[in-house]
């Protein structure tokens, strides 16, 4: 099984969530993060103009069976892109095991 972590624009979250549902990925967690990167936002506060590279994004964490890895990545890449600097990143890592708390089962069964 794999963990797929995606940092995406908050404006793209709805589309990514729907697209993931369409390929059968219906289980994940997300939270809002602030990060630094290449995109910069222009702000003005009481006459002071400043540019910040501290940007708000949404961080999605998905754990899937191996055969869902490719479709998940493909779908996020298609839907979360805008072409502008700051579209985000996807990270893949290996997961040793997973458990469903309600039943106690582990392995691929726990991710169905």
């Amino acid at each position, binding site marked *: 099984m794999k963990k797929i972590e995606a940092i995406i624009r908050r404006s793209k979250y709805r589309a990514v969530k729907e697209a993931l549902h369409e390929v059968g990925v219906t289980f994940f967690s997300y939270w809002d993060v*602030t990060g630094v990167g290449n995109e910069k936002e222009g*702000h*003005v*506060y*009481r*006459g*002071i*103009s*400043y540019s910040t590279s501290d940007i708000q994004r949404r961080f999605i964490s998905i754990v899937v069976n191996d055969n869902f890895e490719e479709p998940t990545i493909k779908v996020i890449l298609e839907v979360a892109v805008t072409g502008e600097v700051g579209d985000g990143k996807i990270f893949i890592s290996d997961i040793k095991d997973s458990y469903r708390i309600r039943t106690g089962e582990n392995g691929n069964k726990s991710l169905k």
Partner: protein
Amino acid sequence: MDTNTALDIMWVVITGVFVFFMQAGFTFVEAGFTRSKNTLNIILKNVMDFVIGSLAFWAIGYTLMYGDSIGGLIGTPSLFYDKIGDMHNLFFQTVFCATAATIVSGAIAERTKFSTYLIFSAAMTLIIYPISGSWVWNSGGWLAKLGFIDFAGSTVVHSVGGWAALVAATMVGPRIGKYTNGKSNAIPGHNMAYAALGVFVLWFGWFGFNPGSTLAISGNNANKVAGIVITTNLAGAAGTLGALILTWIKYGKPDYSMTLNGALAGLVGITAGCAAVSPESSVIIGALAGIAVVYAIEFVDKKLKIDDPVGAISVHGVSGALGTLLVGIFATDGGLINGGGFHLLGVQAIGVFTIGAYVLAITYVLMTILKKTIGLRVSEKEEIEGLDIHEHGMVAYPELSSSEH
């Protein structure tokens, strides 16, 4: 008691209650413009400056201001005022005094010791405000005798608060992180919605502040009161619009917080002349104040490098002085443009500058004493981690994790 007297007393009491509510306005503006780690502290400072002001002004401040005038400089003080038949005036003047006191808290927010602020507030309401107030509103006061016009307190209340804020903010010093290598950094407030609520509450209160200063509603006063309501409202509106348009041009987008400051600047500006100028003049006065406040805020922040998180120095000090001077130009009776020559303008200037100099000097002395005894600022650690947790042992928003500015 005849009906007219009863009506007048009722008028003073009710408008006094409106002015009391401005304390909530100041509280919300200051809470909105500062960071969430300091919210409880700034709110409590605002609560306490009213509390201390109420007690101090009753204890001695009121008579120091309104007692029989000694040489035109102060009133004859007596302790614990209890004259039946005058209690409505005590109340009304108390809420005005408390307004001057609460102006300062915003300018020194986020880094001033709570205990120091309480003592400072007491000094404002016991001594600083009553003395200059007596020069203008005590019938024996020397500025009153000169013909100085400050109907509801652009100078007596607002610029007194504003100049005290100037000295206090300078001596307390800027917040950590505000200036790096001479460059001013933005430290955004945590709740701009609170700020707007505060401005609306203040505007509401101003409908007591200015019209209530007639101290009467009976007979001919009714129309006078209505006229003051209009000049007050028009100036507030013109100030807001002036700041909106100016910032739109200057920054490319209408600036939310400066526009709110513009509303207050217009209201402060008209406070001196609300009973003495025409509606048309009040629009001009408000607009000039709203435009001036934008430049003043930038000047104080970037050129003087005085850290004033809410713009109190500009909104209350500068606008108060400006509004008072403009009475010399726009007063229907004696103003420059109405054939009065320069006499009234000269008198206005005397009042503005002498009260300004007095407040700057006495605040400097007070702050120096406080600095050398109990100190003005919290420690660096306390300032960075937040006044709420260190001075009060709790946080304003326990369910939200804090971010770092």
